[in-house]
């Protein structure tokens, strides 16, 4: 099935069976390896991408559903100013992410900061839980997220 959609601001098309997982298509057909195919069951969030501005777990989405829609992955997001805020925030607070969840964590943090410009404790938890991570401490991550939020506020002021 030929599926056309927008990927990281470019119009693209792919010919794959309609039931293929979006995560597989993005990784295998487009070589976008920033998202991980970890649990393939919607548990870990490591396959998160942005579909029409909203975070989704791409392992749960059959590819035919993205026809005509807009997808952004970390590869596209890393070219935005918003990415820079997260990068600076994480860097400043020494968030030593192992590379495994780093890209998805960065993407989800950036996107959720659109919604929560100044996240309170509860919202921080939501940002944290979107992606399962097995190594970076929550306290450090929280500091990194708050710092990213401050960089963003300063830039937008």
């Amino acid at each position: 099935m030929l599926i056309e959609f927008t990927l990281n601001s470019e119009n693209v098309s792919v010919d794959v069976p309609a039931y293929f997982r979006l995560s597989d298509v993005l990784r295998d057909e487009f070589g976008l390896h920033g998202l991980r195919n970890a649990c393939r069951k919607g548990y870990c969030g490591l396959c998160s991408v942005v579909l029409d501005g909203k975070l989704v777990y791409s392992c749960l989405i059959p590819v035919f559903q993205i026809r005509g829609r807009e997808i952004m992955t970390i590869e596209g997001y890393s070219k935005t100013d918003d990415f820079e805020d997260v990068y600076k925030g994480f860097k400043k607070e020494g968030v030593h992410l192992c590379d495994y969840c780093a890209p998805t964590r960065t993407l989800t943090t950036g996107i959720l900061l659109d919604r929560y410009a100044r996240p309170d404790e509860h919202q921080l938890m939501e940002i944290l839980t979107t992606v399962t991570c097995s190594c970076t401490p929550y306290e450090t991550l929280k500091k990194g997220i708050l710092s990213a939020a401050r960089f963003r506020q300063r830039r937008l002021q």
Partner: protein
Amino acid sequence: MSEDKFRSRLAGQVSFPEDISSRKMVYALQVRAERAPGILKEIILPRLPSHIKFFQAEDIPGKNYLSYPDESVPLLADTEILYPGQPVGVLTGPDADELYSIRKEISLEITPIPGFPPYRMRDSRACPAEKVIQKGSTLRGMEKAETVVEGDFSLILPEMPVYPRQAVYCTKEGGTYVLHLHSQWPSLIRKLCAQAAGISRKQVEIHFNPAGRTWDSHVGQSVPAAALTVCITSILRQPVKLIAERDLPCRKEIFYHYRAGVDQSGRLTALEAQVYLNAGAYGCFSSEVVTRLALGTAGLYQCRHLDIRAKSFRSNYPPWLPLSTWGLAQGEFGAEMLVNHIALETGQDPADWRSRNLTAKGNLNATSGKIRQTPPLSDMITELSEASDYTRKHAVSRQIRTNRNALSITPSSYAGIGMAVSRQGYDFLSRDKLLTAASVSVTLQKEGTLDVLLGTVPATPGIMAIWRKNISASLSIEEEKVNLILDRPDEQSFNGPSCLSRNILVFTKLIDQCCSIIQKKRFREALPITETRTFRRRTANEWNEEEMKGTPFSQSSWGCAVVEVSLFTATREIVIPQIWLTINCGTLLDPPGARSFVESEVRMALTHCLDKQAIKPSLFPKLHIRFEEDGKKSTQPSGLEGLALGTIPAAFTQAVSQASGITLTGLPINSARLLSGGN
């Protein structure tokens, strides 16, 4: 880490073996025996298309076994199948999905054989390792006892979360097999891959996948996968990606039985303990693990009469050793559970009991080695008790527990608080070179660059940056000119695994030694100058593993934890509001990194406690971590690993027992188990 490197990591530009592919690549999928134990009679294959290949034991070009310390494990089983899931063959082909569907059509003819006997039956065939610590006469010690405290408990360790980062990719470049994988056992991998593929070690080049924290127990996943991938690459002469699959369900269980004599003042007069560790079908790594398990179980307290027996036993489950901290923290769990039990039986404050009974300078330790320096634990206990208000909270909770039956109303929740201490030593105690070898080679080149050949895997993300910074400061060389080389097949000597904080403890020391010699020579001798330093193993006088006598660790780190829990009466939900942790690990090289490390280990320790894979951030306790540095210039860094693991599970168990009024006899625990009486 340079700006750009950090940016590219966040931007997803780092490749993992699962991300690597090439045009000619084939996938490899292991075929496993579903039933065990038994004798494999035949592998019945469907008609395979020409692009699909199947390999079995007889196709392995070199040796079809992995020689681990203590016992070898077959790479592909050809006769005896000892556990369900044991690999018997490998399918290869260009399409992973096709391999999965063909695998379903393969059947195995297996004749059943009897399994290993239960561990309580004394059958030497089923016991790969046993270690005994004996001191004095427990018979005499027990005679002096006023009270005898006896108990049993079990610890079932959780499965580690598994990600496909364990995929392995191998390609042949010229005469070299280039392996992409993640493991903290680089030298062992090189050796065993070469052995299995019948090639020389120099032909194996390892590209480490930079995934964060390494885990002690990953040898069982990475080594066989790597060896199979290299074998198949060498047969097919094509790049091969071995598909990583979920871990097989292991039985990671440890059983404890203890009997302790306590005199009127609450002092230990004798301690008898038996610990049994389920090693799975093969006893690899058993000896080191059982030694540490015995040492941990002996505890850190004064006792003249000891009889500690630690054993591993075989079962028809996948082998899974070594475990995190190689058994020391798990042994300490037993010792600390006993202390909490004694305090409860004798009506004493556990913090106070500990402070009064800890060994001190001049005492003999459990293995009759003289203690030359009083451990800092007593002060740590006092400070932590004050910081957490332990004594008061403990007394209140105990009061409530005692009176709960007399209360006419049930509160919505009960509180409990627990304490435990831990000592971690980072030396390997066996003399097996596979474990203990470590050497570093540093070359100051003519152009002013410095090559540091490590042959180790960074166990935490920050350690490489610290080494680079320290080297640059000690030799006044710009950081960019310091090349840390993890792997160079031609020159690399054999190094043990990067676990047990060996990176911090051993490699930092070796790097320092090399650098200070280079500093002395650099303006006197012509460049390039190369200096190699090798880790000196401990002599049998210092530590005798066979007899379990002497001073086992050259250097130790100390930890003390207090865990607070709330137990909701209606639902039996357990919440851990706060954890206090004090750590003394010598000089801290990287304070933020150390904090991160401890925090993630707390998370891991909590998975030992609660019956969940991971602790949700929203339920994660507030952590109060304090590092004690004694400020002496001479103090070496001594590692962090295992301190949270050695303390938190026992402290948690005490807290939950107190809150629930149920004496817990095992971990992990969950609400359902508490509702049904706890056991």
